[in-house]
């Protein structure tokens, strides 16, 4: 973004024009005791050459993911992004516009968002989807906010222990205050404990949030979990990886009320943690409590089809404190990436990607479990593209050794929760070749 500061001359002219003696006078309504008397203590300005050298030296402390083989998962995955995605989103009409929601000038973008929404409803099996949210974590928090708005009077949010722990933190933060309580449903066996869920359900519970495949990669029995939640009068929200929907039962098929998740797997780079893309879909009956932006199709006064933002009275800029959520924006560019990706691959393509992930993950899991001292944490649980293994030695040391060999081995779960000491989360996408996986196994065997 360009920054053109005022010159002293320009400042003087402006002050004269408005009849004010100094810039300080404009701030005189601010109490003296909170005004900063001195100048900010900034270091000496750098030259362009020095500034670039500083930025580059900082960047060099990161590993370049393109030169590493990644088995990292836990919410962001190294999937292949077709060249067409970048080529199309780089068009300046898409790339440079900011919050392009005006019907008068943004028909192309609005149509793209409408297509995105339509594709997400197909993928998740739900009736309606919004224009996207920030990321998987914030849309999961929005699901809880929406459930509490729909189920007025209910204030408990049940979250599976197998939901991404970062998502749980965001759910807690966004739902703190207002008398709401977030409780955890245990998942000691790698999957959400249905008996424990049954015990926690009562007339105070507004929603149950589960993830499928869950944080540990395990495929959950979402139909059963949704049924239990709804029998108790709560809403069922299923959070999940969209590529998995090529194979696992969709939230709609499972009977969920809300489907949310991280759209990064759909043509968005891992980018050291973001920007990402949250998808949010739900049953039609909740359309007035759906958070975020919504694009609709309509006719203008000459009968021509056109796209507009719709049901805006849901949103905070109109409904203010009574709105379900404070989100009145979307991740337009990344939603476009996801739309291009989904269009290119289609139903068959996504299913194919999912099958490759499943097969490769199971191949690698089998080979690692075959190494002395290694085993799967929950060998009886069905998994999709991620799995948890228990290591013979400290996980962090193993990860460090493999870093030297150019392999990002996995996530040390012990760093997230003490209970998972000695466990590593390994993800395998369609990009991983047999040679890469075999090299990974050899490296582990050689430790």
């Amino acid at each position, binding site marked *: 973004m360009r920054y053109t500061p005022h010159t002293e001359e320009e400042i003087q002219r402006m002050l004269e024009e408005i009849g004010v003696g100094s810039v300080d006078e404009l701030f005189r309504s601010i109490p003296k005791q909170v005004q900063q008397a001195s100048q900010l203590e900034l270091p000496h300005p750098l030259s362009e050459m020095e500034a670039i050298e500083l930025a580059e030296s900082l960047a060099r402390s990161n590993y370049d993911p393109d030169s590493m083989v990644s088995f990292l998962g836990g919410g962001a995955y190294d999937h292949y992004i077709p060249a067409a995605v970048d080529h199309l989103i780089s068009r300046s009409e898409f790339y440079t516009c900011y919050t392009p929601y005006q019907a008068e000038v943004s028909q192309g973008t609005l149509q793209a968002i409408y297509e995105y929404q339509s594709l997400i409803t197909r993928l998740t099996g739900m009736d309606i989807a919004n224009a996207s949210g920030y990321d998987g974590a914030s849309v999961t928090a929005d699901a809880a906010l929406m459930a509490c708005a729909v189920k007025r009077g209910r204030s408990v949010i049940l979250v599976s222990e197998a939901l991404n722990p970062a998502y749980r933190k965001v759910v807690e933060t966004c739902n703190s205050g207002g008398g709401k309580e977030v409780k955890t449903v245990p998942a000691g066996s790698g999957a959400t404990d249905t008996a424990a869920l049954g015990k926690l359900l009562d007339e105070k519970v507004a929603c149950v949030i589960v993830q499928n495949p869950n944080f540990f990669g395990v495929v959950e029995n979402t139909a059963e979990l949704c049924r239990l939640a709804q029998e108790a009068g709560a809403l069922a929200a299923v959070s999940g990886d969209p590529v998995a929907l090529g194979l696992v039962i969709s939230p709609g098929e499972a009977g969920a009320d809300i489907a949310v998740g991280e759209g990064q797997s759909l043509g968005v780079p891992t980018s050291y943690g973001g920007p990402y893309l949250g998808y949010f879909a739900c049953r039609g009956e909740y359309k*007035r409590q759906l958070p975020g932006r919504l694009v609709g199709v309509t006719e203008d006064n000459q009968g021509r089809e056109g796209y507009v933002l719709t049901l*805006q*009275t849901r949103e905070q800029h*109109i*409904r203010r404190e*009574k709105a379900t959520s404070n989100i009145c924006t979307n991740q337009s560019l990344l939603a476009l990436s996801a739309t291009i990706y989904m269009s290119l691959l289609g139903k068959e393509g996504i299913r194919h990607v999912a099958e490759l992930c499943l097969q490769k993950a199971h191949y690698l899991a089998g080979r690692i479990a075959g190494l002395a001292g290694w085993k799967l944490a929950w060998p009886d649980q069905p998994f999709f593209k991620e799995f948890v293994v228990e290591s013979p030695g400290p996980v962090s040391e193993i990860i460090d050794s493999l870093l030297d060999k150019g392999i990002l081995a996995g996530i040390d779960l012990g760093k997230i929760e003490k209970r998972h000491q000695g466990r590593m989360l390994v993800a395998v996408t369609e990009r991983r070749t047999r040679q890469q996986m075999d090299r990974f196994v050899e490296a582990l065997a050689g430790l």
Partner: protein
Amino acid sequence: MEIPKGFRYTKEHEWVLVEDDLATVGITDYAQSELGDVVFVELPEIGDEVEAAESFGTIEAVKTVSELFSPLTGTVVEVNELLADSPDLVNTDPYGKGWMIKVKYTEIPEEDLLSAAEYREMIS
């Protein structure tokens, strides 16, 4: 601007018509004309309690959402189901088919309600 006699009015532009122990509530002709096309009305359920001067629901026009304030205290015994599919009744017939809730009231704060003449004075 229609302001029927025999109805009472609130400063928030609701009207109330009392017949025996039942009171019918809606919004005035002035209110609907200020709002513009009504697209959605959010009403309470039968059995819900309403309190004088407290919000009992919301009304949505294309670019705005307003609260609906109850003129009196009591229990909701009937809700206008027609508004779900035809919210425009509030615009076309605000004192008739556009009624919103019927309340079995326990308290009417007379001193806060305006007569037709007082309401006409207020909006002019």
